[in-house]
C-alpha cells in the first residue's frame, strides 16, 4: 500500500463561508461557500476564471479575503495558516520550478519545507509517474513540471490535498496513474479537493462536487443529487405509437418519428416524470430502450450554457 492511513479528528476538512475577494473593480469571489468533509474526494468544477484558483489561494492564506471566513480542520486559513499547512499539501495549477535545479532537487526541497517526505514513496511515485529526476527544470515540459509538483505533494503524509487542475498537462497514461493515486488516498481516509475542468476525471474520482461560476458555488452535492435536478435522456424504438407522453408534466424535447422498423421516439424527463414516462414506453412494446443518466458534461452544460452571453468572469491573477 502506497499511502498511510490518515488519523483525523472530527472537524470538516474545509469549511469556507461567504468568501468575498475583489481585485480592484473585479469581484473574483462573491460569497462563495465550500464545505469538504473529511475523507472525501471533492470535485471543484467550473469554467476558466470562475474563481477556483482564487478560492484555493484564499484557503492557503495567500490572499486576504475581504469578507467571510475559511477554516481548514477548524483552523483559520489566514491567522493559523502555518498550523493548517502542517496538514495539507498543494499542487499549483501553474507549476513554476526553480531554474537551475533538477526536478529531483525540487521534490526534495518542497518535501523538506513540508516537514519531511517519505523516501520510499518518493521513489515509487517517481517510478510510477515515469519522471526523470536528473533533468534541469528548464528542460521539463508542462506535464513534467506538474509531475514534479504531484510527486512532491503525494510523497508527504498530508491529511488534505489541495490539487489545482493537477492533470491539465498529463497524458492519458499518467492520468490513469494519477487516478490510482487519488483512489489510494481516499481508501486511506485522506481528503482531496480536486479543482478540475476535466469532467470525466471528476466523474471517476469525486464523491461530491461543487460547481462554481463567477465566484459563487451554484450547485453542490453528490453526483446522484446533482443528477436528480437534471433530465434523463430516453430513446426507444417501439412497435406502436406511445400515448400519454405529450400530456405528462416534466417531459421535454419529445420527438416521434414513424419509420419502417417502428416508431423512433426520444425525449428527456425530469426525476418525477421519469418512471411514468418509461412505463408508457414499455406499454408500447419497445424493440430497443435506452435510458441515459445525465453525464457530468451535461450537468456542466446546463449550468453554463445559458451563461454564454454573460460577461467573461474574472481570473485569480
Amino acid at each position, binding site marked *: 500500500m502506497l499511502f498511510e492511513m490518515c488519523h483525523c479528528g472530527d472537524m470538516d476538512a474545509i469549511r469556507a463561508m461567504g468568501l468575498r475577494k475583489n481585485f480592484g473593480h473585479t469581484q473574483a469571489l462573491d460569497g462563495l461557500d465550500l464545505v469538504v468533509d473529511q475523507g472525501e474526494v471533492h470535485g471543484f468544477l467550473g469554467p476558466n476564471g470562475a474563481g477556483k484558483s482564487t478560492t484555493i489561494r484564499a484557503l492557503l492564506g495567500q490572499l486576504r479575503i475581504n469578507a467571510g471566513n475559511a477554516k481548514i480542520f477548524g483552523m483559520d486559513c489566514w491567522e493559523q495558516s502555518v498550523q493548517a499547512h502542517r496538514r495539507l499539501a498543494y499542487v*499549483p495549477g501553474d507549476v513554476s520550478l526553480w531554474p537551475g535545479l533538477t526536478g529531483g532537487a525540487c521534490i526534495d526541497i518542497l518535501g523538506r519545507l513540508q516537514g519531511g517526505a517519505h523516501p520510499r514513496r518518493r521513489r515509487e511515485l517517481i517510478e510510477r509517474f515515469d519522471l526523470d529526476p536528473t533533468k534541469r527544470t528548464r528542460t521539463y515540459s508542462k506535464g513534467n513540471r506538474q509531475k514534479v509538483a504531484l510527486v512532491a505533494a503525494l510523497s508527504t503524509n498530508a491529511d488534505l490535498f489541495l490539487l489545482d487542475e493537477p492533470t491539465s498537462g498529463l497524458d492519458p497514461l499518467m492520468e490513469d496513474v494519477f487516478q490510482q493515486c487519488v483512489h489510494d488516498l481516499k481508501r486511506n481516509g485522506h481528503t482531496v479537493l480536486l479543482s478540475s475542468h476535466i469532467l470525466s476525471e471528476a466523474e471517476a474520482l469525486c464523491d461530491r462536487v461543487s460547481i462554481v461560476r463567477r465566484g459563487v458555488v451554484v450547485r453542490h452535492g453528490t453526483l446522484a443529487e446533482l443528477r436528480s435536478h437534471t433530465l434523463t435522456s430516453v430513446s426507444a424504438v417501439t412497435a406502436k405509437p406511445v400515448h400519454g407522453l405529450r400530456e405528462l408534466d416534466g417531459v421535454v424535447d419529445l420527438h416521434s418519428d414513424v419509420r419502417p422498423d417502428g416508431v423512433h421516439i426520444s425525449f428527456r424527463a425530469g426525476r418525477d416524470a421519469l418512471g411514468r414516462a418509461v412505463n408508457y414506453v414499455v406499454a408500447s412494446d419497445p424493440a430497443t430502450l435506452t435510458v441515459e443518466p445525465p453525464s457530468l458534461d451535461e450537468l456542466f452544460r446546463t449550468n453554463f450554457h445559458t451563461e454564454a452571453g454573460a460577461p467573461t468572469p474574472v481570473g485569480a491573477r
Partner: protein
Amino acid sequence: MTGYWSCLALSLRTAKLQVIGWPLLVAGLVASTASTLADTYPQQADRNAYAAASEAMRASAALQGRGQDLSTLGGMVANEMGYLTLILIPLIGLHLAIAFTRGVEDSGRLDILTAGAVHRLAPSAAGVTAAAVTAALTLAFSTFSLLLMDCPVRGSLLYASGLAIFMLAFTAVGTVAAQCCRDARTAYVLAVGFWLVSYLTRAVVDVRGWNATWANPGSWPAEIRPFSAAPPWWPWLAFLAFTALLFGIAALVATRRDQGAGIIAPRPGPASAAPWIRSPLTLLVRLTRGVGAGWIVAAGLFAFAFGYLTQQMSDLTSAAGGQVSNVDATLTVFVQMNALIAAAAGLQISRWLAREETSGRIGHSLAAPVSRTRWWTSATLLVTGWSLLLLSCAGLFTGLGLAAGFNDWSYFGQGLIATLAYSPAVVLFAGIAAALSALSPRLVTLAWLAIAWGVIVCLRADLLRIPGWARHLSPLDWMGSVPAEAWDRPAAALMTVLAVALAVSSTVIYRRRDLSAG
C-alpha cells in the same frame, strides 16, 4: 524573411517604453550635463581653465575615460558624460539585445510566433532591429539636446552617433551571448562580464597612458573626438568591423542551433537536493549563490583594479598641481563605489527574490508550514548578508590592490577598513529594497533610483554643484567622506536604526498583503 516586419512591429509595440525611454534618459542626461556646464563655464576663459584643471585631474580618466578637446563645450560634455558613455550605454545595448531575443525565447513566446507563417529567425532579427532602433533614437534625441545647447552641428552629430554606435556594438555583444547561452540569465552574465573586462582594461590603458586604445572597444568612444578640428575616421571603421563581425557570428550560431537551445546541451544533474538545503534561508542561499558569486568576481576585479591604480592616479594629480592631491581623496571615491556596488548587488538579489514571488514559487513554498515572517526574515537576512559580504570582498580587494600598487602592506588595512565604514549605508540600502518589495514585488526597481543618485553624488557632486540637502539624499553622504574625513558615528547609528525599522515594518506589511501569484 517572412514575418520580419510584423515581428518588428510587435517588438516595438510591446517594448515601446524601453525603446523610447532609454534614448530619452540618455538625451536628458546629455542636455542636463550640457546646460550645467554651460552655466558653470560660460566664457571661453572658464573653459580653458576647465581644460587645464582636467589635465591636472587625469586620475579621473580611470573611471570616465580620456577627455578630449576640453576647451569646447562639446568636449566638456563628452568628458563629463564619460561615466554614462562607458557604463550606461553598453549595458543598455546588451540588455536590449538579450531581452528582445533570448528573453522572448525563454518565455516561450518565440515558439508561438514561429509556429505561424514566420521565418524561424525573423523574431530574433526583429528583436535585434528593435535594439538598433533604440540606438538610432539615442542618436536623434542626443543630437537634438546638443543642438539646443548651441553646440556645433557636425560635432553634435558625431558625438551622438558615437553614443549610438557604441550602444550598437554592445547590442552585438549581447546578441552573440544570447544566441550561445541556453537562457537569458547566463547570457547576461557572459555579456556583462565582457563589458567589465573591457571597461577595466580600458581604465588601466588610460591611467598608464599606454598607446593601445585601438585594441579595446571601450576605448573607442573617447577616440572619436567629435569636437576636434579633424575627427579621425579609424574608430568608426573599428566599430563597424567589430559590430559586423559579432553580428556575423551571432547569425552563424542562430542558423545552426535548435530553437530554445544554446550551443552547449544541458547536462543531467543530481537526482536529489543537497542535504544542507532544509530551510527557507538555506534554499535562498542555494538559489542566489550563482548570482552572488558573479558579483563577488566582478566587484573583486573592480576593487582590485582601482586599488592598484590609486597610487598612480594620486601621483598624476599631485604632479599636475591639482588642488586635492592626497591618496585619501582618490580612495574615498573608490570605497564609496565599493559601497554602491555592494548595494547594487543586494538590490539585484532583491529583484531576483521578487521574481520568485511573481512566478508563483513563493506561493508554492509557503503552502508548506513556513510562516511568512520566517520566509521574509530569511529573505531580508539574505539580501543584507550578500550586501555585506560583497562589501567585505570589495574592501579586501581594494586593500590588496592598494598594497600591490604601493608595494606596501600597510595600505591593505586602510582600504579594507575604509570600505567597511560604509556598512551602515549598505544595510540601509538593503532595508529600502526590503520595504519596497514588501509593498509590491514590482516596486523593487524603484530602489535603483537611490543607487543612481548615490553614484551621481559620489562622482559629480562638486561639478554639478549639487546643494547639501540634495547630497544628503544619498545615504553614503551621511557617513562623511571616509577616509578623507572622519567616520560619523551618530549617522552610522542612525542609519542602522533606520534600516532595522524598515526591515521590521516591511515584515509587518508583507504578512498582511496578498501574494501576487501562487
